[in-house]
């Protein structure tokens, strides 16, 4: 329950930042996609169910406020969350390369599907332009942002893990914040 609340707050904050602060931080008219980072890292770190949930609600919010076709973004983010969740097995806490690759890939899938369904379908055929001017810059910006944010995401994941433990087994609640974190690390090693 607590974990769900934290997740909900996380999605809300990310969405708010995405459509206010980060739009003003846009470089050359391109802003990074925080929602993709959140969705695929949650899927990747915490499995397909949670990735799915985060993706579903992130997409739903985007649809409510900015959607053209209600359900499109929900479906897209749902796919991203579920897809990254499938690779949960490969996740290894301290390795940054894999999550980075995965987020870049998610971003690519996101860009390509928006282009395909929203632009190609309206006979905008200049794929090279859209790829070079929208998809690629957004991808790079997002990946760079992930690099900067990865520590934070990692800590967040551990925090969520701890919330899990708190509810699952109250024995663990004796641990304070500090030891529990290192404990988690060694456990995963």
């Amino acid at each position: 329950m607590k974990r769900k609340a934290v997740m909900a707050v996380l999605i809300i904050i990310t969405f708010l930042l995405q459509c206010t602060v980060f739009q003003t931080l846009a470089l050359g008219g391109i802003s990074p996609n925080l929602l993709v980072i959140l969705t695929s890292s949650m899927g990747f770190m915490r499995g397909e169910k949670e990735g799915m949930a985060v993706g579903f609600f992130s997409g739903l919010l985007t649809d409510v406020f900015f959607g053209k076709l209600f359900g499109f973004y929900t479906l897209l983010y749902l796919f991203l969350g579920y897809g990254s969740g499938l690779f949960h097995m490969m996740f290894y806490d301290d390795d940054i390369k894999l999550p980075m690759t995965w987020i870049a890939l998610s971003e690519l899938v996101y860009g390509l599907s928006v282009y395909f369904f929203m632009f190609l379908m309206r006979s905008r055929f200049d794929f090279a332009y859209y790829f070079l001017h929208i998809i690629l810059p957004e991808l790079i910006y997002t990946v760079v942002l992930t690099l900067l944010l990865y520590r934070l995401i990692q800590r967040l994941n551990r925090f969520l893990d701890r919330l899990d433990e708190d509810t699952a087994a109250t024995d663990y609640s004796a641990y304070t914040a500090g030891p529990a974190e290192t404990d988690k690390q060694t456990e995963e090693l």
Partner: protein
Amino acid sequence: MKKRNRFSVPSKYIFAALVLLCIGTMFASYSTGFAGKTLSRICGYVFVPFEKGINQVGGWARSKKDTLDDLAETQAKNQELQAQVDELTLENSRLMQNQYRLQELEELYALDQTYGEYNKVAANIIASDAGNWFNTFVIDKGTADGVDVDMNVIAGSGLVGIVTKAGSNWAQVRSIIDDMSNVSAQVLSTSDLCFVKGDLQLIDQGMIQLYQLQDTEGRASIGDTVVTSHVSEKYHSGLLIGYINELSLDANNLTRSGTLTPAVDFEHLHSVLVITDLKQNGAEQEEE
């Protein structure tokens, strides 16, 4: 350790169900215009206060930054402007005379519709589209303030866009530079009809597309004013869109197309005016 859920449904079934749900809403949205009314309302109450807050902080920071920037500039400009004031005072008196003539002519033309006659509501932009593909934004006024779908949105002198979705305390506006925007327009000087279409490829250059201008003789020229046309279904006629930037004859030898520069600076847009009269029932509302 995590086997507490007694009936754990395999995630692929949940996934399949959610996918079907999404596809269902997409079809519903496409065929009936379903847009999750109740959801919009709930989301409005959750998000709009925050967005307003962030917007206020942003506005404050911006104004502080602007003040500092401006101070140095202002002093230098002051002198320059003083000289201009003298010059313009002279010119103004001359233009006043022209104004009277213009009024007379406009009355003759029955083209005296200015923005003044519409009811308007001022609104702040509180959020921009989450992605980089579209140019929609959210304003802080909704159905509770009389803003509704299909109302025109203007800023300063020109057309900004149209309300495409409205919650009780927020509304989504699609700007005319958005890739999906298409406005029926006319060239003011020649009254030739055309269409103005947003284009993602031209946004960087600050321009929008103009096409199917029915002007075989080539009477319209660069710099001409383009306004919304009287045949438009949703846009009030005579709202300023922009100025022609480039024109060329199409392959069919009948129509012209090109680009135009919008009158509104979309990069630095912070507040807008929503015209709360809808085009179809404008007459009814005036009677109220």
